[in-house]
């Protein structure tokens, strides 16, 4: 599955911003949430993401993982600047699966979110 942009890179006000539901192909076993944090540099601004998964076409939902971040220049383990944060969770294969999530920002911020499935 090609990376799917679930939130475009626009300025959003602080608060909750929902994305999805997204239909997941049956054979997907790992989800990678990629967040463009190239403009998330202010340490006073904080965001969190919560994912939910449905195994019955969206009738019921279950918490599927989360992450949070305060602002600053992202670097890799060697200290090189990078522009994204990631959250990776295994995903149970099967039919009738949906993914949705909520981004919570403490203040106005420009970022985007892509879902990559493996």
């Amino acid at each position, binding site marked *: 599955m090609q990376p799917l942009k679930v939130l475009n890179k626009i300025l959003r006000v602080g608060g909750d911003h929902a994305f999805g539901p997204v239909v997941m192909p049956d054979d997907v076993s790992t989800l*990678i949430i*990629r967040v463009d944090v190239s403009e998330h540099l202010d340490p006073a601004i904080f965001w969190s993401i919560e994912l939910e998964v449905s195994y019955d076409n969206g009738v019921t939902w*279950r918490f599927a*993982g*989360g992450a*949070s971040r*305060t602002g600053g220049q992202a670097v890799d*383990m060697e200290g090189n600047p990078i522009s994204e944060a*990631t959250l*990776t969770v295994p995903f149970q294969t099967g039919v009738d699966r949906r993914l949705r999530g909520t981004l919570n920002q403490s203040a106005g911020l420009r970022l985007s979110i892509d879902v990559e499935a493996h």
Partner: protein
Amino acid sequence: MAIAVVQSVVVTGSSTNSVTTPAMTTTDGNLIIMDCVYQTGNFVSSTDNGTHVWSNSIAEISASPVNGRQQYTANITGRASHTFTLTLHTFGFPTLAAKEVTGQNATPLDKVASGTSTGTTHTTPDTAAITQADELLSGFGFLAADDDMAVSAPWVQDEYLPRVGGSGQNSIMSASQVVAVGGAKNFTYTSNSSSSTAEGISTWEAAGPAAPPVRYQQAIRPYRFVPGITR
């Protein structure tokens, strides 16, 4: 009831302050073991949404530039949507694998060992001899690289998460087995290419057999002869 791993979850992040696992439904009285990996000096806490108290079972070990430790809480209050969170002091590279164990003793942690290694086969030092024959062994290993990791029977892989998310992620292997024979124990796993890794093993005592029912015996008071009293 035999000691056993009931279920497990794993999550990893890069350039994040915290990660939270997918939810699982847990059961009262069980044990949770969390394998935590993060970069050097960055650990703040491991927590859950059940506000349990967490303690180190394996103190911090290092495979520079990443460190890891194992934490646990015994005798939990189960939850329908139980999640586990690893928090760092700033954004970094957190990875968390949590497993639920049933059938453990009231104070289950027995022996631990940890170390570092290089190459393609990685083995912890031996623990001291375990206290009882019937114990669960829980091992974990990690590295700051893109590599394939594997365990061999009788070890069972509970969770394995390679560096699928790209630069900066850790790779973690979390495994377990139940042993029926005492003695010293270690944890062994392999990586596909020569890597610097850190690894640890902890052993957990199974609950003993149920105590036999208490038998109450009524005390018989001896007859006391009192002189002068006649019937």
